[in-house]
């Protein structure tokens, strides 16, 4: 938790002072984790490294868009990595695409809930995940963290495809209930 604040402060230094030492620290911490994370999701090492580099370039050039009240460094980088990956796949597939067109860059959303800070949100969702029944937590891990398809999950777990589908559907609905129940308690 102290760490969350520490990395946020480093990004702010990059944004405000173009602080290279702060950036190097962020780079050394996050670039190898991004690479590892993407490889776990099935990207080969070279592509994982290219996307990690894209993300770090974005951090260097757009650190001013980071708002430490709305997200932690790792959540912000997770989002950038997701969007970079989607951009790359899109360009790879549509040769006629104008490289300058606005890429799939979701508009910054109006505040979700200003009273919920980034750190609290992370704690909440971690707790909610921990409350899921083990079999549901496992399909969340495979589908969400590893990005596996229904049929890949069916193969790796030996469960019939129909069971996989209904279990995933239940798991994400249940996860939502747990997150929102938690929010409701705190609002009182």
């Amino acid at each position, binding site marked *: 938790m102290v760490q969350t604040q520490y990395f946020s402060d480093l990004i702010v230094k990059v944004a405000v002072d173009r602080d290279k030492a702060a950036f190097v620290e962020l780079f050394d911490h996050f670039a190898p984790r991004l690479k590892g994370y993407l490889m776990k999701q099935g990207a080969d090492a070279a592509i994982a490294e290219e996307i990690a580099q894209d993300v770090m*370039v974005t951090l260097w050039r757009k650190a001013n868009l980071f708002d430490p009240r709305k997200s932690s460094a790792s959540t912000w980088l997770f989002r950038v990595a997701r969007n970079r990956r989607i951009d790359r796949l899109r360009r790879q597939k549509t040769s006629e695409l104008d490289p300058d067109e606005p890429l799939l860059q979701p508009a910054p959303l109006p505040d979700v809930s200003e009273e919920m800070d980034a750190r609290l949100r992370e704690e909440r969702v971690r707790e909610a995940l921990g409350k899921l029944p083990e079999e549901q937590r496992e399909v969340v891990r495979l589908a*969400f963290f590893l*990005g596996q398809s229904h049929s890949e999950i069916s193969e790796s777990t030996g469960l019939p495809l129909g069971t996989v589908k209904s279990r995933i*559907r239940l798991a994400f609905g249940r996860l939502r209930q747990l997150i929102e129940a938690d929010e409701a308690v705190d609002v009182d």
Partner: protein
Amino acid sequence: MEKNVTGMDELLAGYAAGTLSYPAQALVGAHLELSDLNRGYVSSLESLGGVSLGDADPVALSDRDTSLSAIFDDETPFSNDNEPIANDSTGLPQSLRSIVGNSMEGLPWKALLPGVKECKFGEIDGCATSLLWVRAGRAMPSHTHHGTELTLVLQGGFRDDDGHYVAGDVAFADDDVDHKPIADEGEDCICFAVTAGRLELTGPVGRWFAPFMR
């Protein structure tokens, strides 16, 4: 409106993870722009993604020093862009612009039935992608699905057997549902529709790309 009987929560999780097909990703992004209903859940899932990135096992870069100096050597001026593009008069969400263009004006609509027009954007990542325009009070053509159909209401509203949907809502029709939506009276209904097709796509970054719920 959208309880999880529809699989909406899984769809949102796919959006947060970035595993949806391109048009489904755009559709959910547009939904989040237009409606605050699911923003909190998606933010929470993105936080979960952040936590798992933070916990990921690091893999050393092949040449860390070169990668770093490539970033510092870049002379491009620092960017302050990425401000949201001003909303156009037709209210097209930003997330749809890479598919639809910058505006709904001047699109090549084709009449399907009296009172129903369609503008197709072709099959993207195995999903048929189109805009539908239904005159107020008219019915869309009755149809069944082979696969899943997502419909995001951009303007007006419609009703089907499952419920009533207004601007910003997503209707989720599963395989083999016989479907006959009817547009609300009073205002023409415009929807962005994505239907999962049959293509299985693979490639070097492969498994992420498949019809939106696989």
